[in-house]
């Protein structure tokens, strides 16, 4: 069954088609989320949100772009949104510590220290993950799609809705910043 046929069946809420679709694409979506979130549990959670979104809005997909582009875009957006809400949580939790409410503190994990369970705790990886976590959103998205997903600039530009030139600029900046951040990491550790 082709992707287009699968999507047509998902549109009429065919569960078997949805299952096939999820089985085919969950590794891709899961990894895109994990590149940005750098946390296995969060990536499982957010990648499932991606598929729920697809199940609910499959009729909005017009086939102008590749299905993978559409999936990448939703996965990136959901992951960035999650990071933003986590930042807000972190901000409130820092308020809580200032005002002495320690009860909520345990719920909020430090994103800098969040490493997927299956990822080996190797110093180089931690250094890279912490550095990527500190990049601005757009640089982070561009560099992870380019380096980890090995996507060409053209597809990244479609996913992010920016020009190919802008993608190039973002990736160069990201690489420069990573060098500095990784250097800082080793200087301090």
């Amino acid at each position: 069954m082709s992707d287009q046929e699968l999507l047509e069946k998902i549109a009429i809420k065919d569960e078997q088609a949805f299952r096939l679709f999820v089985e085919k694409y969950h590794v891709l979506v899961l990894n895109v989320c994990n590149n940005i979130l750098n946390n296995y549990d969060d990536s499982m959670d957010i990648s499932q949100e991606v598929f729920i979104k697809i199940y609910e809005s499959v009729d909005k997909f017009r086939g102008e772009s590749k299905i993978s582009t559409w999936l990448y875009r939703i996965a990136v957006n959901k992951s960035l949104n999650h990071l933003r809400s986590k930042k807000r949580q972190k901000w409130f939790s820092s308020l809580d510590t200032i005002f002495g409410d320690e009860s909520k503190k345990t719920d909020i994990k430090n994103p800098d220290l969040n490493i997927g369970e299956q990822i080996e705790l190797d110093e180089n990886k931690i250094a890279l993950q912490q550095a990527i976590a500190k990049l601005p959103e757009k640089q982070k998205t561009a560099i992870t799609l380019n380096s980890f997903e090995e996507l060409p600039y053209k597809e990244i530009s479609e996913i992010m809705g920016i020009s190919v030139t802008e993608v190039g600029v973002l990736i160069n900046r990201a690489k420069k910043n990573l060098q500095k951040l990784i250097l800082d990491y080793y200087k301090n550790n």
Partner: protein
Amino acid sequence: MNCKEFKNRIPDYLDQKLTIDLTNQFNEHLKNCSDCSLLFEKMNNTLLLLNKPDRISEQPYYFTQLKQKMENRIHPNESFFQVLLTKKIIQPVLYLGSIIIAVYIGILIGSGTPNTTQYAEKTKTDTSYIEVLAQYQYFNEMELESIEKNLIKEDSFNNNQEK
């Protein structure tokens, strides 16, 4: 080139932006300083990881978990109203109610104490309270009587059944 200078030049070195002279100085320090060469090696190895990311492999129960999650969301309104009802309405009403009752009891106790002294003073002269008391007793007897009647009724009913 000292250690601090060396570290600051690493990014430019990696970008091949150093002059030939500085590149030579950089390489010289790299050869002779074990701390800096270790740092440089770690940095290079870390940057190389960009090209070989860790991949999460296929998850056997992914769809089952996803389906469970979707099913849990089928009745979001119901749970929302339940939360609204218990947390936002019933709980405060109960709290408010118990506060009102507590305050009311407090007022009763507060206003009750002077009354009893008044009452005690009254007993010395006034005997009208006896009539009130008698009324209450009568009332209680009525109640007792009605219960007794019921008991009797039940007995007779049982007796009738036995016959």
